[in-house]
C-alpha cells in the first residue's frame, strides 16, 4: 500500500502575483496548481475584487511534505514583507499518489 498522504497548501494573495508565483511554485517542485479568484478582508483592508488592483487569488497545491516546506520558506523570505499574502497547509489523502 503506497503512502497516499500529502500536504494541501493554500496561498491567498494579490492577483498581480499570480503568474510569477505559479512559475516559482513549479520551480520549487510543485507538479501542478489550481488558481481561483478570491475576495475578502484582512489586515491589509477589504480586497473586494472590484477591479484588478484589489483582486485576490487563491492558489492551491497538493504536494509532498518537503516541497510544502520549501514553498513555505521561500514565500516567507521573498513575499511576506511586501505583499498581502497568507499561507496555510493541511493534511490530505490523494487517490493517485504517483501524481503528486
Amino acid at each position, binding site marked *: 500500500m503506497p503512502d497516499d498522504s500529502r500536504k494541501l497548501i493554500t496561498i491567498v494573495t*494579490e492577483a*498581480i*502575483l499570480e503568474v*510569477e508565483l505559479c512559475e516559482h511554485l513549479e520551480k520549487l517542485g510543485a507538479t501542478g496548481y489550481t488558481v481561483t479568484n478570491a475576495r475578502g478582508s484582512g489586515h491589509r*483592508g*477589504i480586497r*473586494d*475584487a*472590484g*477591479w*484588478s*488592483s*484589489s*483582486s485576490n487569488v487563491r492558489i492551491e497545491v497538493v504536494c509532498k511534505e518537503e516541497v510544502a516546506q520549501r514553498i513555505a520558506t521561500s514565500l516567507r523570505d521573498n*513575499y511576506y*514583507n*511586501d*505583499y498581502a499574502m497568507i499561507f496555510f497547509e493541511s493534511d490530505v489523502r490523494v487517490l493517485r499518489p504517483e501524481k503528486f
Partner: protein
Amino acid sequence: MSVDPVILFFVLGLVAGLAKSDLRIPPAVYDLLSTLLLITIGLKGGVELAKSPLAGVLPQAAGVLAIGFILPLLIFPVLRAFARFPRADAASLAAHYGSVSVATFAVGVTFLAERNVAYDSQLPLFLVLLEVPAIIVGILLARGLRSGQSWGKLLHEILLGKSIVLLVGGLAIGWAAGPAGVQPLEPLFFDLFKGVLALFLLEMGLIAASQAQALRTKGLPLIVFGVLAPLPLAAIGACTGWLMGLSVGGTTLLAVLTGSASYIAAPAAIRIAVPEANPSLSLTASLGVTFPFNIFVGIPIYYSIATALHQWGG
C-alpha cells in the same frame, strides 16, 4: 454650461460607493469597457494619422517621449524634500504622476467634442508615448541601477501591458485600414463611445469611493499633493504643446495627459518592481484625488491655459 452627463455618472458611482450601495460592475464588464475605450482612442488616432505625413510627427514624438522621462525626475525630488516621503514611495508616486490616465484623456476628448474644438491627430500616439517612460524612471529611482529583478521581464510587463497593446494595436489597425476601412466598425467603437465612457466612469466612481478609507487615514499630504501636482505638470504639457505648434485642442489634451496620473499600467508594474512601496499611497492619490480633480476642475483650467497661450502667442 451644463455639466457633461458622463461626469454625472462618475458622481453617481462615487455617491453609490460612499453610501455603501450594493451596486457593482462585474470585473469582466469593466475589462470590456476599458478594452473598448482603448481601442476606440487608438483607432481614431490611427485613422487621423493616416491622413497626414508621418515624418512631420516624428520630432514631436521625440519631444513628448523626452517629457515622459523628465516629469518623474521633477516630481521625485519635490516629494523627497518637502513631503519627506520614503524613497520607494516617492519613486512610486513619481511613476504614477509622470505616466498618464486614459480615462482622463477620454473625458478631455468629450470635453472638446462638446465645444466643437478639434484636436491634432497625433495625440493618441502621444498618449502611448507618455505611458511608459515614467514607469521606467520610477523603477530606476527606487532601485538604482542595480538589477535585483531581470529587466527583460519588467520591460515585457510594461511594454506588453494591456493598455499599450490595445492602444498601439488600435493605432496600427486604424492607420492601415484608413477612414473607409474603419467605417463598418464605427457603430460599435465611435457611436457608442460616450455610452461606454459613462459606464466606465460609473465604475471609476465606485473605485474612487473605495479609496476614501485610505484617504481618511493617510489624508492630508495625499490630498495636497493630488490637487497641487496636476497644475504645474499640466502647464508643462500645455507649454510643450504650444511650442510644438499644436492646435488649442491638441494643447489642451497634451496638458490633460501630463496633468493626469496613471492608475492601471503604473500600479501593476510598480507593484512587481518596487514591492516595498505602499501601493495604496499612489493609488489613493491618483484615483481618489487627482482623477476627480482633473475631470471636475482640471480639464476646464487646462483648456483656458491652452486658449490663453494661443491668444497671447498668436
